[in-house]
């Protein structure tokens, strides 16, 4: 999820001075204090991730996913909005190629997070960076950016704490719980569970509306989705709305609302602009700089 200012960032210069060795880093009081704060932030994120992972599991079950298929989505794709969207596409009988195209464009925002972290992580081994990339989500980025900024340098262990303990494990455990729980309910519609998917989509879309352009894209996407679905079916309608809606949003003047964004897996408010600014500036942070944020 991106804002206008974020797209204009250039990668920051390499961090300086060089970080201490891992042993020195782990034992220093400032690292321990920063990790304590990170742990607190991570708990809040993990609770939200687990709740939303449960909803994904229920929605996936409703669309006919087996537990293995739902878990495979959460382990491999590991992208909340795209996973939710895929539930709708699969249920609508959409061919896989359009699903993959839409997944790509939905997740392309990760380029910005990755680009923001790249200068700071340049000193890490390529295999480490490759592994870090797989768990780079909205939440992992926000947690890492705040932690690095508090610390004034990179802490790879801190990155793993946020990304793995805060997001990856809760998301996957909750997905499995949701899909198994959904299978144990004989008539999900009696509990209104058929509404989980469209309601979650509407809420996630609202979380992404931070300005006039996003509002126009969402509104026109919804209208086009309905009209085209009535004409030729939802499998075409959702693509038409998703791909033409942004074009309409682009012709609308920027400005208007300025609301905090929500992540795509937790509905947790995440100030991505600030996180971007944090991670791009932490290499120059002074010792007396205040913490960037107290909680995610």
């Amino acid at each position: 999820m991106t804002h206008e200012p974020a797209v204009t960032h250039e990668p920051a210069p390499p961090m300086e001075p060089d970080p201490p060795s891992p042993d020195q880093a782990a034992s220093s009081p400032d690292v321990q204090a920063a990790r304590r704060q990170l742990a607190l932030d991570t708990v809040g994120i993990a609770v939200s991730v687990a709740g939303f992972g449960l909803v994904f599991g229920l929605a996936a079950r409703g669309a006919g996913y087996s537990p293995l298929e739902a878990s495979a989505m959460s382990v491999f794709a590991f992208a909340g909005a795209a996973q939710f969207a895929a539930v709708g596409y699969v249920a609508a009988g959409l061919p896989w190629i359009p699903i993959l195209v839409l997944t790509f464009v939905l997740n392309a925002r990760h380029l910005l997070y990755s680009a923001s972290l790249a200068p700071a992580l340049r000193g890490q081994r390529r295999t480490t960076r490759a592994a870090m990339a797989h768990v780079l989500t909205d939440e992992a980025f926000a947690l890492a950016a705040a932690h690095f900024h508090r610390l004034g340098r990179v802490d790879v262990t801190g990155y793993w704490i946020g990304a793995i303990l805060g997001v990856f494990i809760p998301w996957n455990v909750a997905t499995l719980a949701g899909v198994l729980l959904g299978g144990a309910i004989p008539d999900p519609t009696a509990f209104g569970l058929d509404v989980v998917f469209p309601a979650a989509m509407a809420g996630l879309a609202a979380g992404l509306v931070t300005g006039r352009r996003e509002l126009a894209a969402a509104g026109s996407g919804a209208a086009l989705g309905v009209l085209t679905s009535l004409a030729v079916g939802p499998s075409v309608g959702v693509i038409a709305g998703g791909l033409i809606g942004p074009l309409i949003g682009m012709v609308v003047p920027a400005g208007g609302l300025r609301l905090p964004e929500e992540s795509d897996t937790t509905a947790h408010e995440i100030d991505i602009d600030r996180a971007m600014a944090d991670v791009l500036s932490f290499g120059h942070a002074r010792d007396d700089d205040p913490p960037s944020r107290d909680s995610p």
Partner: protein
Amino acid sequence: MSTQLVLLALLMLAVTYPSRAVPLLFPGVERLPTRALLYLRLVGPAVLASLAAANTFVIETPDGTWMPHVGVEAIGVLVCLGLTVWRRNLFLGLIAGVGLVAVARAMGLA
């Protein structure tokens, strides 16, 4: 147990991972034109809104055609949407929207 969608999950990994990894592994190659970045930013709200609206207001008839539909499901979705915007809390919105539909159905109102 069905495993067909495991392949789809792997393909979704194949189209998602490059966005996450390329700038980290090859710094500098991620720069895109501003218009392209703007388009990508707007895809999220458009796709999600399109999915929500089509799943709420369009139903399939027994003869395989599609028709507009406004039922208690739409009210549930709008309640969720309203609470999400008002309280900035999607989880609360989901509980309220789904609960409303469940209660309406239990009372025979839908």
